[in-house]
């Protein structure tokens, strides 16, 4: 993976590799260190002076207190006209979708949203167990290739345990 990382430093990653490299960077602290070292080497060779400074950890600590940003540009569809309202942060890697309308006067540039804790205060989360009928109906009726047969129905009953 470090070869691909090195290519990413140079903006020379193959497009099919980039997803894997970025995911690996997310989970692997040694790769992130290498990312730092490779950039440092480049900066040394180009004669940058501020070699001893590393403000990354302090910036990231402060970011931890910032709301997660989400951009409407993540969606690029022509007929998508309304600005995206807020989207809740993800917790523990699980995709969580909020449906929190910001006040219409709020400019798109500031479509920042409170962290999930705040979001939860504003809107009570749906209980997964409320959704069993819907899930069952969804999974029983969706067309297309049923690759997994009935094993996907585990989702319907898995939510029962999740809430405990």
């Amino acid at each position, binding site marked *: 993976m*470090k070869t691909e990382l090195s290519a990413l430093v140079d903006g020379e990653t193959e497009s099919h590799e980039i997803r894997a490299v970025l995911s690996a960077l997310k989970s692997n602290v040694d790769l992130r260190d290498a990312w730092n*070292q490779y950039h440092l080497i480049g900066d040394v060779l180009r004669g940058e*002076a501020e070699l001893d*400074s590393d*403000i*990354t950890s302090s910036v990231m600590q*402060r970011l931890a207190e*910032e709301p997660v*940003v989400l951009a409407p*540009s993540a969606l690029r569809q022509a007929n998508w006209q309304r600005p995206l309202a807020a989207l809740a942060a993800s917790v523990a890697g699980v995709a969580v979708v909020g449906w929190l309308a910001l006040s219409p006067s709020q400019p798109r540039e500031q479509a920042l949203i409170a962290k999930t804790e705040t979001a939860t205060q504003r809107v009570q989360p749906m209980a997964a167990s409320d959704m069993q009928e819907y899930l069952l109906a969804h999974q029983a009726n969706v067309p297309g290739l049923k690759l997994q047969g009935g094993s996907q129905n585990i989702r319907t009953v898995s939510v029962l345990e999740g809430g405990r």
Partner: protein
Amino acid sequence: MGDREADRALVERVQAGDQQAFGLLVVKYQRKLLRLVSRLVRDPAEAEDVAQEAFIKAYRALPSFRGESAFYTWLYRIGVNTAKNWLIAHRRRAPTATEMDNMEAESYGETDLLRDVDTPERLLMSKQIADTVNLAMAELPEELRTAVTLREIEGLSYEEIAQVMDCPIGTVRSRIFRARESIAQKLRPLLDTGPDRRW
């Protein structure tokens, strides 16, 4: 793909809610941004604060970043504004025209002035890092050193390096990687990668 597209991939991840991806951009641009900010904010500790602030501002403004300009151009603009505001707040004066010119020039990478108020310890650390990298470079096999020089100093693309060195692009890629790994190994003992430095 190019550098701009690599940044764009990172930016889009941040825009999709991946805060950690922003750290990769900080790692990549912190030294350049710090150099820029240091033109105006001379005290190194204060310059670091301003650079931090600029990154935080950039993060907050990221939803509005549309990718019309390169990420670094956009980031540098935020850096300049943050430094200007800092000067006004702390020195109660606006930057002089000369200082602004320096910063503007800096943002295009055309000047390379040394900061004159670094403490001896900081200079020593910087020097150790620079010496280690330069020594490791000198010890590299010829073809690795050439490849990494063409990339990092001359700024050539892999394709161009492949033409210059008359070898496949895959070889260029692997030579640059091997060069970096070899240098990084010598660098690691110098760098603090303790838990508090990790993110």
